[in-house]
């Protein structure tokens, strides 16, 4: 497979003080195919943002490799990475925190153009206006400070900034979760349009599996630092192989009240376990409705269940889809 960015057996740990270490990402194998969109889905704390930041080499992995465009960048120092950064960009989660409140949007966009592209002041400013217009903002936005913009406008500005250096890889970390429901669809549509126009490779980090499934080619589901299921988006949504994926799909209500009333679903009990002390065996077993004795002892490997569709469950593929997932909006 021709992957633009790839994690191989990636482990990321954070020190929380003497003797206390949190393993945020624990042995992840994941490849984002070139020019495709891969959605990385999971609950908060599942390690999906950490994985994204490690693929950009903001964090240094404790073990495993990070490959970008076939090149191993795991041990690159900041100086070498700096030259690579323009090719890999990120849209950050909180549009209220990700723009510098002290400068206008235009200056924020012009800064990387002048530093990394060597544009002059006037040329950078002109390009900033073009970029803002390309994400559906009026050019006059360039003269404004972020506090005058709405959340949706700020996120558009954040997307414009990420595209300023014409990256190949765009990692969008929950780009719409901080926005009003009414503006979410617009921003998602914008990302999709820009992806096509610029032939981007996108890693979309999200917690809404139904939404993510609609705009991506592939979906990976994370649970407590591990990928539990990964496959083509329609396949994964129609025939989920891991009970956790089924549970995530159950969380989305069906617009049809007759189906909604009668549809079977898995409702998860309890909180996701802490990554500080992950459960033995399969990490999902304490909450899993189909868990058996083996699940508490032996961790299931991520194995191919169908073509290009992997799942980490002892019973993946053996069982009929344990619960019929709900119909997906527009799907």
């Amino acid at each position, binding site marked *: 497979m021709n992957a633009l960015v790839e994690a191989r057996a990636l482990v990321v740990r954070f020190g929380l003080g003497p003797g206390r270490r949190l393993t945020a990402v624990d042995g992840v194998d994941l490849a984002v195919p070139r020019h495709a969109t891969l959605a990385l889905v999971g609950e908060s704390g599942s390690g999906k943002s950490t994985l994204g930041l490690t693929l950009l080499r903001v964090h240094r992995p404790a073990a495993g490799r990070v490959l970008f465009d076939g090149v191993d960048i795991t041990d690159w120092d900041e100086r070498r990475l*700096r*030259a690579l*950064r323009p090719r890999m960009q990120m849209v950050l989660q909180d549009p209220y925190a990700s*723009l510098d*409140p002290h400068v206008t949007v235009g200056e*924020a966009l012009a800064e*990387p153009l002048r530093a990394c592209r060597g544009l002059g002041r006037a040329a950078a400013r002109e390009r900033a206006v073009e970029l803002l217009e390309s994400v559906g903002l009026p050019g006059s936005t360039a003269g404004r400070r972020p506090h005058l913009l709405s959340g949706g406008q700020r996120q558009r500005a954040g997307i414009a900034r990420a595209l300023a250096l014409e990256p190949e890889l765009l990692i969008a970390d929950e780009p719409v979760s901080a926005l009003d429901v009414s503006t979410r669809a617009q921003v998602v549509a914008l990302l999709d349009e820009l992806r096509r126009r610029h032939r981007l490779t996108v890693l979309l980090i999200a917690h809404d599996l139904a939404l993510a499934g609609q705009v991506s080619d592939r979906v990976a589901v994370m649970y407590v630092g591990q990928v539990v299921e990964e496959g083509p988006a329609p396949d994964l949504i129609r025939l989920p192989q891991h009970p956790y994926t089924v549970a995530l799909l159950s969380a989305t209500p069906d617009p049809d009240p007759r189906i909604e009333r009668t549809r079977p679903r898995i409702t998860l009990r309890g909180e996701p376990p802490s990554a500080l002390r992950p459960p033995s065996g399969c990490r999902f077993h304490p909450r899993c409705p189909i868990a058996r004795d083996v699940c508490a002892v032996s961790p299931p490997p991520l194995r191919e269940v169908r073509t290009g569709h992997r799942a980490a469950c002892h019973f993946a593929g053996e069982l009929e889809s344990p619960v019929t997932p709900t119909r997906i909006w527009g799907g």
Partner: protein
Amino acid sequence: MRVPRLRAPGLLVAGALGLAVVVACTAAGPSLAGFDPAHVATADRLLPPGTAGHHLGTDGLGRDVMARTLAGFRWSLAVALLALVIGGAVGTVVGVAAGWHEGWPRAVLSRAIETAIAFPALVLALAVIAAAGHGFWALVLVLGLVNWVGFARVVLAETRSIKRREYVLAARLLGLGDARVILGPVLRALRPTLLVVSAFAFADLLVAEASLSFLGIGAPLGTPSWGGMLADSRQYVFTAPWLLYAPAAAVVLAVLTANLLGDGLTQLWGGGGRAE
């Protein structure tokens, strides 16, 4: 008794008024008094205020108190301002370096800052003046050396928190080098903090300058400075108390102004971190 709490605009207005008076006095200088501050006239010594054209009287050598007090503005403000620039620059550089680089650079610089805080300032001042001699630049250097620590400590803490802000991460992700990120978003975010710290540091510097001059290790003998004037006035406290009033009032005015501005800005910015 409850003192009504002044809100930010009130503090700022009071501070601005004080600043206007300080600036006017500094700009006008001793010429406003109509006498040369250094002119000695033994025949006219210890004249009470209002006699022979001396609005605030004369001192033990017959020098005009008003002219000397006004000249003191120029001396004190010049010393304090230059010491502020030196201390602010050194403290900001050290603080940003320690706040930005995790690991051993931060550990080493933090210990250095703590050591400097613990070191008695007066001993340091005596040592430097003993080595470098008396004079304007020696005084500026001493005060700068004492002053940088306050900046470094606050800037260190603030830089650590700024570094975690998402827009700083965004700048790094764009491929901007450390220098560009520090000179850009980090320094911009530090501006309000620096302004507030500067105001309070300036007040401290004025007091420190007056103290050193009072002790005779600040302004050289004969230089019209508030601390020196206060020291001279001691022997005439009961016979010519007016010698005390003018320089003391000038110190109070200048220090109060700086503190009012600092307090006003702090309240305006809610602790000095946010600009919006």
